[in-house]
């Protein structure tokens, strides 16, 4: 049982680490990775839940949720990467700030 709690707490910590990354990093790729880290934290948390039955049988539903979640995460990552590549090709920049500043510079 304590393993499950340890896993859950680890999951929460990973989620916060990812959240921090999403907020403070400006590079698109880092933001994408941060989102993935957040997702991983949640999956960890869900997997820990599967182990809470007293009879030792794992609960299948969290597994199903994690599997679905992974599929969503993979497609999300692919999707955002495609967007970022397009943005980079069009502007040559890889962060909101850089594009924004450039825009302003061009107008001046």
């Amino acid at each position: 049982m304590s393993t499950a709690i340890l896993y859950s707490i680890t999951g929460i910590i990973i989620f916060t680490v990812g959240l921090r990354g999403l907020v403070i990093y400006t590079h698109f790729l880092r933001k994408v990775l941060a989102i993935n880290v957040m997702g991983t934290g949640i999956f960890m948390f869900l997997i820990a839940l599967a182990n809470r039955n007293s009879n030792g049988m794992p609960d299948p539903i969290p597994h199903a949720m994690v599997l679905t979640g992974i599929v969503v995460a993979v497609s999300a990552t692919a999707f955002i990467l495609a967007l970022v590549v397009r943005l980079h090709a069009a502007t040559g920049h890889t962060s909101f700030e850089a594009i924004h500043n450039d825009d302003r510079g061009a107008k001046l």
Partner: protein
Amino acid sequence: MTQIIASHASVWTIMLPFLSGVLCFMAGRRIGTLIGVVTAFILTILTLNLGVSVFQSGPSRYAIGGWSSPLGIDIHLDGLSVLMLGFTAIVGTCISMYAFGYFKDRKGLKKEKNKHYAKMGTYFWPLWFFAWGGLNVLFLSSDIFNIYVALEIVSFSAIALVALKGSVDALLSATRYFFLTLLGSLVYLFGVGFLYSAYGVLDLGLLETVIRPGMISTVAITLMTLGLIIKTALFPIHFWLPPAHANAPAPVSAILSGLVVMGSFYLLVRLWFETFTGVIMPVAGQLLGVLGAIAILGGALQALRQSRLKMMLAYSTVAQIGYMFLLFPLLAGNSIGQGFAWGGGIYFSISHACAKAAAFMVAGSIMYALGHDRIKDFRGLAQRFPIGVFAFALAGMSLMGLPPSGGFIGKWMLLKAAMLTGQWWYALLIVAGSILAACYIFRVLEITLKAANPGEKALHIPLRMQLSSLAMSFFAILLGLAATIPLEILKIDSPVFFQSMEGFIK
């Protein structure tokens, strides 16, 4: 065959848009467009049917594949979900008709430009139907994890729709939208995890019976609410919405502002007042109310400062979302006002969907004709483009809350709830917000009524686009004239005691 469709109608409302989405993608632009329009009409008929059956035989549940909860996923049909389905179908059909004209080749445009529209048209239809399907899942599903998946389907299609134009602005808005909406989904999912860890069920109905107040419940509800607030773009996390809604092609703006906003708001209402009723603290409702209040005033003031019509409408959406969130503090008050708060908030959200979709369609038509949407250059539009300006004025009536319109009924009910629960400040706020809305709507109308600049060129707007925007705005008005029907539907299996509707102290 008809028997099968009839008995599984609710599943078909989910299956059909996804199927058509795939078909549209494979068929290419020309046939895809046809498939799209036909599907939209079939979906409308289907949902109307569902509405009638719910009206006649009450709420129902349907276990997908015969596997009922807790292991399987249930579809639940009650007044609220049927109402949402129905209005999504009506608004969706008008938008589809509009898009039918919007993505066609434009006479008088250069070839490359037309090619660009053709390309957008090819991808619009599949993405739009995925979004529609996702919304229908959202309204019907009774499983909080399944709902998460639905939210993601809606978000991804919406983001792709925002990026449809391919310009730097569009890509940037889409990227910003992506990060925020995904953050929202993940936070929501985390909340789902917490709930499951405490209660071991995912079904909304089952959760309602087992949920108890406590630390974990509070954390879970907070996370889920936070996630949905981000997705609904309530102040202070609204900044992603205006660029995303304004930079998209007009039919997409209509979808986003009209339907997608309504979807996540619906979910929040469903969770708070059905599943979490016993657990929610009134303070939390007040907090959402304060955020809503700031959104109403701030959004409207920002809308007033915009020089582009679509940007103005997008900020107006921010303000109108604020109105919807007044439902939370008003419903948490005493019991006399509850029915009004519940009815008013939901009524407001559906009338906003109709009115805002219509307004964005008109904005798109104006852009189609003039090639820009700078408000100060709209002189003489009322004369050259009367149907559009008329449709905009009707939609504006609903946004301002003038009678007879859906927005008026919604505001009236919210105002009444505020009066009955003694929360005067909200009543004043509702009125103040209406006046601000009048300022930004009439700012546009006034310029269209000015005498035209001679010799300005404009493309001819296809009648199909004009009529669909007009039809949409008529619905916004119709909601003010035939309010009994939606409200009767809303009463079916309503979580709030609706009979206390005389609503006066005597």
